[in-house]
């Protein structure tokens, strides 16, 4: 697994340059709490060189809005909607309530302080 650091501003450009639908396979989006920041990760694999897993990651504050990659990767909306509910982060153009009931306490995967 090779990890590629990116930032919020360059995220769409980096992934847009990297991702080709006929070459790469978007696996999943993940988020891990690191201190008081959140590490958001995008995992890609390769059809031709299958053992290469590429992980783009960026460290953000919980209240920062993360740009959506829906227009680059068409199936990313499921992963984004799930993270919005489970990690209580903000993603552009994504509403809450896909995973949890709307009245439920959001962000159950975040560590209780």
């Amino acid at each position, binding site marked *: 697994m090779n990890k590629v650091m990116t930032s919020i501003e360059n995220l769409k450009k980096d992934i847009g340059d990297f991702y080709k639908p006929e070459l790469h396979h978007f696996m999943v989006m993940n988020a891990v709490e690191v201190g008081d920041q959140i590490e958001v990760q995008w995992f890609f694999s390769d059809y031709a060189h299958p053992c290469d897993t590429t992980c783009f990651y960026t460290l953000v504050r919980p209240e920062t809005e993360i740009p959506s990659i829906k227009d680059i990767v068409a199936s990313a909306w499921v992963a984004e909607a799930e993270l919005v509910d489970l990690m209580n982060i903000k993603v552009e153009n994504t509403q809450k309530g896909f995973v*949890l*009931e709307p009245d*439920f306490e959001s962000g*159950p995967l975040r560590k209780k302080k």
Partner: protein
Amino acid sequence: MNLASYRKKSPWILHYNAGGCNGCDIEILACLGPKYDIERFGMINTGNPKQSDILLVTGPVTKRSRERLVEIYAQMPEPKVVVSCGACACTGGVFRGMYNCEGGVDQYIPVDVYVCGCGTRPEQIIDGVVQALGILEQKTKAMEVSVRLQKEPLKEEGQINRRNIADQIKPALS
């Protein structure tokens, strides 16, 4: 023709997965298959709660499926028996205390038979359903008693005698 006497011979099953792992569901499907063939007891898996007598529930009840579970239970006609299949439907099993599920089906609706095991063998499901048949018969009898009581309602309690009203309406209609 009395409906109650046929109920024991052909109880219809309604199956609802309230958030389980599918393990018990495929065992229920295996019960419907040729090897265990639950149709020997006259049981058919029906999709309609309004025609079913036995509700087979699997899974700990998740927050999103609890309303559907209670609604399905409410739509079933009396007498009805609830069988919870598997450890997680009985008590929550390994999912006890997780944030999005409540421990067990009996926190929401009354359960008559608990089938233990994770996942349950089809034999255990058949055992549970056969026990449920006995309970269904008891419940049917209890209902017959209440109908007999309805015949002579106590006037001072202000009950409406539906039977008399029906008898009064009948000649008017015909």
